[in-house]
């Protein structure tokens, strides 16, 4: 897979439930259609829950990559304002 150009990075490592999800969603809401958000997170529940909720908001999950341990890197394409 060719490397995607990241427009914005959000680091929610160490944050407690539900901030990883909420910060991701509110950041995506402010982004333009097609922009790419990189999310760095280490909370397993959110790694499984964020993809479910992205779909509902129309955002597109490009990839979820496990780094080391619970650390994950998620790439998401923003849907933009409706």
């Amino acid at each position, binding site marked *: 897979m060719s490397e995607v150009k990241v427009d914005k990075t959000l680091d929610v*490592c*160490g*944050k*407690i*439930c*539900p901030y990883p*999800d*909420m910060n991701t*969603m*509110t950041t995506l809401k402010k982004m333009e259609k097609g922009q790419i958000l990189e999310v760095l997170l*280490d*909370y*397993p*529940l959110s*790694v*499984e*829950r964020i*993809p*479910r*909720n992205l779909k*509902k908001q129309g955002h597109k999950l490009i990839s979820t990559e496990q780094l*080391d*341990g*619970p*650390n994950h890197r998620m790439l998401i394409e923003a849907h933009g304002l409706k």
Partner: protein
Amino acid sequence: MEAVMTGLFVGILFGFVLQRGRFCMNSAFRDAILLKDNVLLKTVFVALLVEMVGFAIMDSAGAIAINPKPFWWGANLLGSFVFGIGMVLAGGCASGITYRFGEGMVGAMTAVLGLAVGGYFTAAGFLKPFKANLQAATTIPGADDGALTLHGILGMDYTVLAIIIVLIALVVWFFIARANKEKYEADPGWGWVNTGILVGIVGILAFPLSAAAGRNYPLGITAGWINIVQVIFTGATFNWIGMLIVGVVVGGLIAALISKEFKFRVPKPLVLLQTFIGGLLMGFGAVTSGGCNIGHLLSGIPQLSLGSILAGISIVLGAWVASYVMFVLPQKKEQ
């Protein structure tokens, strides 16, 4: 082997299942309004139905004698409402913060500390008279001065009513799912059906083992943390529920190590203070109401205790009010 050691065994199983299944009632209730995500809520329902079937069969077979909690409407309402607010602040329910302790989440450790302290002072400290008076003043006993239960009110056999409720729930669920054209979507993890069934099985297993150790009740969390406080500070011995908690932490740790998810995660100091205060409220609320989300919701509702049903509703309401104020309102202001 001492009878309390089975608590450790059940606890390890419970912690493992909670960690791998990502089971959390705080998320379950909060997400339903905040993220419009009801996957964990469905897990809770599955666990309740599985337990109800297990308890009903074991009770009629004489393997257990159900022991529903009493109905203290004032204490149930107030205590559980405060508990619900507390768990949103703490970032997890009583079982959630306990297994995340094992995962290395420092915010969960401070929450647990709050839960143990708040629980201890309400059970045996300066808040004890308040709790005892509220419980006594708002008690409505059932028949023969026993606990007020759904089957008691209806004059039915427990097993019969439990099975009827499970069957009705399954039929209603089937039609709701069909009306919503819901398809079962597998989660990346264990999936909500499997997690719910496994949590239910651990709850069923807990009942006779705990009873054999002299504590006639299935799973609980808060009383176990209070026992640990007493072991450390007053030289008390471990009881079954205390051993269960040690097991949940160890089980969470083992599951996190196996899945390479163990990591010390330290939030900001202000967040640590927030989860500690949340824990204090949870401890006060759980002891006042006579149970936390596990003692009342997971273990008490399947026994059809009216107190547990009221406590369960109150926990959900408290969680919703706190979630609305903490998360929904700030979002609305921003828009």
